[in-house]
């Protein structure tokens, strides 16, 4: 697209925004989901965010969604359909929608797009994600404190930086409170298969783990933990109901915090492209209630860590951190920069496993 077109688009955009307060037309907000809303995990939490937008803005907005959109050739079409049907702000909520979102955004310069968990922005494409590793730090502190066998089981999906970062964050935190702790990691090659996740949890427990952590979507592992009398941490949504005795805490993805802000800025005309990576501080991650059976001093420590992270006085990746081969990743007193976190694909020192590549 040439500069003239781009300038014209910008003018149109500005004119549209200036006219916005006068018109009674509601702002149409569209969401593209990778799974079904009924997954009780990733997509479910995004939809909770959509419902929060409807609740908060009432007649000012109109929301719609398309669920189960495959991350292949179909994504472009669905995103474009939302743009065609008059949506002003479109959230695409999975990494695989990155290039489709960028492509469609070029065709619809006056529509605003928001892509979750990717790294490509444009004038009308903002990106957002949550610092899930902050939640995993708290999970690691709890796991390291409550374990008696000193073996922590981790159910992982695919060896991508997001998952590796989560394992490292959990491990560093667990080691910081319990130097004897070791990790067993099982890769299940799926984000979502309740049966397989449950089987992985059983395998880990059989091998001595007494705390189960997961980077997959379903509450099956927590149910197994409940059944076997070990601990587990809920992922993405509040999973307390699925195993109230085993459940240490759930780290909940609170997309509503972000969606409310962005819809507000679209309504008042201040929307601009940005790259948001928010955690506890931005309320994009929240914790459920802690299990009452956890010793009070452990809860106190976890809460202290949570608020320190929220204020910015604590970073889960504070040096010295080495990788498994002893190379220095983060120097003493330094904290990891976002670029390094984003591409993290080695285990930190002390994890006794090989990262599948």
């Amino acid at each position, binding site marked *: 697209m040439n500069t003239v077109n781009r300038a014209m688009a910008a003018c149109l955009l500005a004119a549209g925004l200036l006219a916005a307060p006068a018109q009674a037309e509601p702002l149409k907000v569209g969401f593209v989901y990778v799974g079904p809303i009924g997954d009780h995990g990733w997509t479910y939490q995004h939809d909770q965010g959509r419902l929060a937008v409807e609740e908060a803005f009432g007649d000012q907005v109109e929301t719609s969604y398309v669920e189960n959109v495959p991350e292949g*050739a179909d994504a472009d079409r669905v995103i474009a*359909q939302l743009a065609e049907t008059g949506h002003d702000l479109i959230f695409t909520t999975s990494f695989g929608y990155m290039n489709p979102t960028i492509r469609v955004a070029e065709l619809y310069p006056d529509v605003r797009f928001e892509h979750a968990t990717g790294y490509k922005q444009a004038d009308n494409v903002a990106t957002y994600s949550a610092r899930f590793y902050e939640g995993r730090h708290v999970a690691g502190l709890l796991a390291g404190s409550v374990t008696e066998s000193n073996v922590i089981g981790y159910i992982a999906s695919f060896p991508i930086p997001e998952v590796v970062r989560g394992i490292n964050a959990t491990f560093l935190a667990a080691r910081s409170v319990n130097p004897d702790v070791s990790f067993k990691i099982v890769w299940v*090659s799926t984000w979502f298969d309740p049966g397989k996740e449950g089987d992985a949890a059983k395998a880990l427990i059989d091998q001595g783990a007494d705390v189960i952590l997961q980077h997959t979507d379903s509450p099956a592992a927590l149910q197994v933990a409940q059944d076997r009398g070990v601990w587990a941490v809920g992922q993405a949504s509040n999973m307390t109901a699925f195993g109230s005795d085993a459940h240490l805490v759930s780290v909940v993805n609170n997309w509503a915090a972000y969606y409310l802000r962005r819809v507000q800025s679209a309504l008042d005309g201040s929307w601009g492209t940005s790259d948001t990576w928010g955690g506890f501080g931005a309320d994009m991650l929240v914790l459920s209630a802690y299990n009452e059976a956890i010793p009070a001093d452990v809860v106190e420590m976890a809460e202290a860590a949570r608020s320190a992270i929220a204020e910015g006085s604590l970073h889960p990746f504070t040096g010295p951190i080495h990788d498994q081969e002893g190379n220095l990743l983060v120097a003493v007193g330094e904290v990891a920069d976002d670029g390094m976190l984003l591409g993290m694909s080695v285990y930190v020192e002390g994890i006794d496993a090989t990262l599948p590549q």
Partner: protein
Amino acid sequence: MALRFEARGAASRAMVLGSPAIAVVLTLAASLVMFASLGTDPVRALQAFFIQPLSSERGVAELMVKATPLVLIALGLSMGFRANVWNIGAEGQLTLGALAGGGLALALYGYESPFLLPLMFVAGIAGGMAWAAIPAFLKTRFNTNEILTSLMLVYVAILLLSYLIHGPWRDPDGFNFPESRLFHDSARVPVLLQGTRLHIGWPIALAITATTWILLARHIIGFQIRVVGLAPAAASFAGFSRTRIIWTTLLAGGGAAGLAGVMEVAGPIGQIVPVISPGYGFTAIIVAFLGRLQPVGVVFAGLLMALTYLGGEYAQITMNLPNAVTGVFQGMLLFFLLASDILIRYRVRFVP
């Protein structure tokens, strides 16, 4: 009073066209009930399913984009199905085609040449054929059931894709996310209609349709396929090689699926991603039967099937109907279409 079906002497020409019409009317009636019971306006819902997707040039182009892989795969499969060769692993063959063709694009990244894309097509077809050759070999050599082997190989292919894309084939500048580089321009399928995604895959699919039609109607192999399917005993009596038919039909199906796969990655997707096909290989089986295993029928069936996907998306966007409704609606439509085919070969008699 009871209902009975009596065989017609010959297939009814009127019902060849009439039975789909009856099916559509029945689906409309049943969906009126379904939408009304869900508390949605049935007229608006049907409009979203069937009219809205076609109300713009872009919509029609998208319909063809979506139908291209379905038609291609179903063409290949229908040849096998006619000869009672049950390749249900087209999904895996598609994946291998995409990996072979796409792998070539990655290996020759930045290499500008008009020959690159045709080479990728050849690689894609070869990849699909290679994957289909496994069940063909096991079937002809060890008499192993091809339904099972081709199905198992789907899972193996998808896991292979997953391994490659989470490991060696990742974009070197992509922060280790599971996606390959975006293919460069000469590895991309050219777009036919500016402003849409309609690419040369659709005319290619139509050309293959015509070729298949001629092959089946006029060529000896078409005759052999029909005889092997209809009367295996007569075929072996006539000296037709069952082995040859198995190899031919499986390779044709695998090649077509492989081509569909490479056209997806080099066309609308433009890179290798963890999910290349949302189950085209399985949906195409339905398309093949909806099209009554006839090349021309397959084209119409592919378009209809594609329309229900697009319509399902519109129903979600404009009416907030959950995706589950699309599944139920598709299922009903397919049930009626498949069931009404009986009217071609049988007439209904009311017996008092």
